[in-house]
């Protein structure tokens, strides 16, 4: 394992031209698949847990790309904590072995409240994980039930407390807002609850209705009311108020953190950084090449066992695409992007081409300049798609 000191400002949540190197590991298993979820995850594949872990380890071991030591590692799902802490630790060790992990790197694992206790957190900390992202989603019982979650509000709060007792100091609570079942008071209660629980980071995601989910069918057949964008915008504002009052800063559309606890891995995505991805359906990006693995766990395992590639597809970005894409991604961050660094990385031409559009958007108050930085005006946060698509 190579050793380097991660600079302290690495977790400020600011856009960076050199955001480090990330490793994403996907665990595609759930006890129960929620009706709104369109992630790559599967129920009832317990028999595959062990072979999948073996395959992941083997796939990491045989990674042939050139990669610097990881500055962030993220285990996402699915429900990673359906696996034993020991299994997760084995995979993390393989990453350390093959890729190298910088000292002070941010190493996150997603946690479902009903799958963990203090001993589990203890084991995960021992294995090297230093940040937990807990899927609280809501603290309103009827919302949790309607979302199809398997935990109660008490269990969620208990998980946050257990993590802290085990010594965790980097805790994120994932929340979902603006579901059709949520009343304004429910949302405030959820926010206040996770703040009071002592989290350092909150991810608050508006419920989006993705095609091909059961929720989409329920809504399109009129059995569940549709989500209301206006209400969601309202709730986003409420989240910002409460979190700001509690000392959190919003550093990305849906993410708030206390000082120095922004997710480095998240910022890396929005800074168009490089990352490797392991596991079924995992995505990776290195220097303009994006690729992704086969989605089915069984196929992933089989490919590794046969020692053939798990890659299911790729795209090679033209140089002319990379600049606009970096701009589109960077504007998700509250800091916006530093135009000088963008120009050095991707050339000046794409910025010159977009200068009139940028000026117009600045003129109408939708974008802001601060020195050489360009960012969304605060009131544009929830309108990012409409604005950013003009800059593609």
């Amino acid at each position: 394992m190579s050793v380097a000191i991660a600079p302290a400002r690495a977790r400020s949540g600011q856009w960076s031209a050199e955001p480090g190197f990330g490793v994403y590991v996907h665990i595609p298993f759930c006890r129960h698949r929620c009706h709104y979820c369109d992630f790559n995850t599967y129920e009832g594949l317990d028999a595959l847990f062990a072979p999948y872990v073996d395959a992941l380890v083997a796939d990491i071991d045989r990674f042939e790309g050139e990669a610097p030591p990881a500055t962030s590692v993220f285990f996402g799902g699915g429900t990673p904590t359906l696996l034993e802490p020991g299994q997760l630790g084995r995979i993390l060790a393989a990453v350390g072995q093959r890729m190298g992990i910088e000292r002070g790197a941010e190493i996150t694992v997603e946690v479902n409240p009903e799958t963990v206790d203090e001993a589990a957190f203890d084991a995960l900390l021992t294995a090297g994980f230093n940040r937990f992202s807990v899927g609280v989603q809501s603290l309103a019982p009827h919302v949790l039930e309607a979302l199809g979650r398997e935990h109660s509000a008490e269990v969620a709060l208990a998980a946050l407390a257990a993590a802290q007792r085990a010594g965790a100091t980097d805790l994120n609570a994932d929340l979902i807002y603006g579901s059709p079942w949520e009343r304004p008071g429910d949302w405030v209660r959820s926010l206040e609850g996770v703040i009071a629980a002592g989290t350092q980071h909150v991810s608050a995601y508006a419920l989006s209705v993705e095609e091909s989910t059961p929720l989409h069918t329920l809504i399109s057949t009129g059995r569940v009311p549709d989500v209301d964008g206006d209400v969601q915008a309202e709730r986003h504002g409420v989240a910002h108020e409460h979190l700001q009052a509690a000392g959190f800063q919003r550093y990305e559309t849906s993410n708030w953190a206390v000082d120095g606890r922004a997710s480095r891995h998240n910022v890396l995505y929005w800074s168009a950084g490089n990352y490797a991805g392991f596991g079924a359906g995992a995505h990776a990006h290195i220097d303009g090449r994006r690729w992704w693995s086969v989605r089915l766990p069984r196929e992933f395992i089989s490919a590794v066992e046969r020692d053939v590639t798990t890659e299911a597809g790729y795209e090679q970005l033209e140089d002319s695409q990379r600049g606009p894409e970096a701009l589109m991604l960077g504007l998700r961050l509250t800091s916006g992007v530093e135009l000088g660094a963008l120009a050095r990385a991707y050339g000046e031409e794409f910025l010159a081409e977009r200068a009139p559009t940028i000026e117009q958007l600045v003129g109408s108050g939708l974008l802001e300049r601060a020195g050489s930085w360009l960012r969304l005006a605060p009131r544009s946060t929830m309108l990012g798609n409409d604005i950013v698509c003009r800059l593609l």
Partner: protein
Amino acid sequence: MDQKHQRAIAVIAHIDHGKSTLSDRLLQLTGTVGDRDMRAQYLDRMDLERERGITIKAAAVRMNYEADDGKTYQINLIDTPGHVDFGYEVSRSLAACDGVLLLVDAAQGIEAQTLTNLYLAVDAGLEVIPILNKIDLPAAQPDRYGHELAQLIGCEPEEVHRISAKTGEGVAELLEEIVRRVPSPKGDPEAPLRALVFDSIYDAYRGVIAYLRVVDGRIRSREEIAFVATGVEVEADEIGIMAPDPIPVNQLETGEVGYLISGIKEVRLAKVGDTVTTRHNRNAEPLPGYREPKPMVFAGIYPVEGDDFPLLRDALDKLQLNDAALVYEPESSTALGFGFRCGFLGLLHMEIVRERLEREFDLSLIATAPSVGYEIELTAGDRIEVHNPTDMPDPSKFEAVYEPFVDVLVVTPTDYTGTVMQLCQGRRGDLQAMNYLSPERVEIHYQMPLGEIIFDFFDQLKSQTKGYASLDYEPAGMRQSKLVRVDVLLNAQPVDAFSTIVHRDKAYDYGKTMTERLRKLIPRQLFDVPIQAAIGSRVIARETVKAKRKDVTAKCYGGDITRKRKLLERQKEGKRRMKQIGTVEVPQTAFIEALRVDSDGAGS
């Protein structure tokens, strides 16, 4: 043939009362068409007519009929158009006749249009033979409607013929009646040639085919001839008769009906109502009743795809070859791009042109709301014509606006008298007369602005009278009115396609309807979009499309940035297809929807 044995007749009937079927039966009974060749509705020419079951262009056919008196008669059957838009054409067809068959559905009674045409025929001094058709139908009420007809034309109910054109019942007797009652033509065979053009169609192979009736003298093949009104001088390449297929002949004598092909390529050079004479007689006194075709209804027609503009121009050029009444000039609209302002005889004519453009030329079109032609008296004293609301000058620059009025005739069951009067009154109608056809049916005469009729009046009339009332109207000159132009503005930018000229009292309704409609059609933007209706600078209605508040994806799923970019690329492509009105992005479909006439009654 000598004049004594000639008869020229037309059938006047409402749509669906069986004119074409009767014509077919006459062709069959006189042996003009063999049974084997009989196609239903032989005389209707175009597909479109066949599909709609209506006759747009008249045709004339010669039948030789051996009567009970042992002599052979030449019966010329002149078909007449059956819609209000073609009233002038009907009058010319009637002018070419000596008698008419008044054909009425025995289950429905006489309708407004038939009544108008009957009055035309009576005014022209034509012999009228009243006929009830479809007596084989279970719903037929021959006694009731026979009585009505007898009263109308002043005959005994027993004199009304009862036939079934479908089965042929009574049609043989009808032929005898035609020979007996319809007078023979009275022209002067020794006088110089004068022939009346009563129809004119364009044929892709032969050029213009003019249908005419020789009033005086005779016309010979290869003769040098002249059209008096247009001044065109040509050689008669071919003259002939239709029986019903064309048969060239050497000459047409006084009273005979036939066709003329002369190398003319555009129907506007051989117009309906013009007089044909010999070239050395070109200063002959023209036959009475000629009129220039006058467009009454105007609309902008635009290709949905801007690239199709040249195709649309070519299509209109081709269509004009056989449609003397169609006029058009290029115009451009910020909302709709490049297109043409077109003038039509009426709404049906407009619909036919549009349908032909789409069908025969494979174009996809948007039409603005139809308007009428206005005359504006400028402060400076000049009088200008305005066919497009956006051409209406600023209110300070004119003294007065004049709009076309029409005499409206509605025939309705008396149960609906009040309904009809209320409808007409609401459209600025002025009651002229009422006349009871029978205790159950009444004809009501109104004078009304044409502009009020072209906004779904017919639909309203039909729906409010459960389909029983029928409508006809004819031009009644221009009258001064209190008209204003209402503009529709998006975020303070006027959208030309939605400007309209309406009566001052209707301006608010129009403004409210359009602003409400647009509020529903324009997607929410990054900022509030005010939609205003205004007369000059005075806003009379306002709606707001509230700014959208959320348009952002919550997260980036597991680093899948490709998916996020594709989503945004689709959104960008969607923007590219929108029309930009100032800073407002409007989908093309919003214009099409907003202009969709007018089921919920803008202007009503």
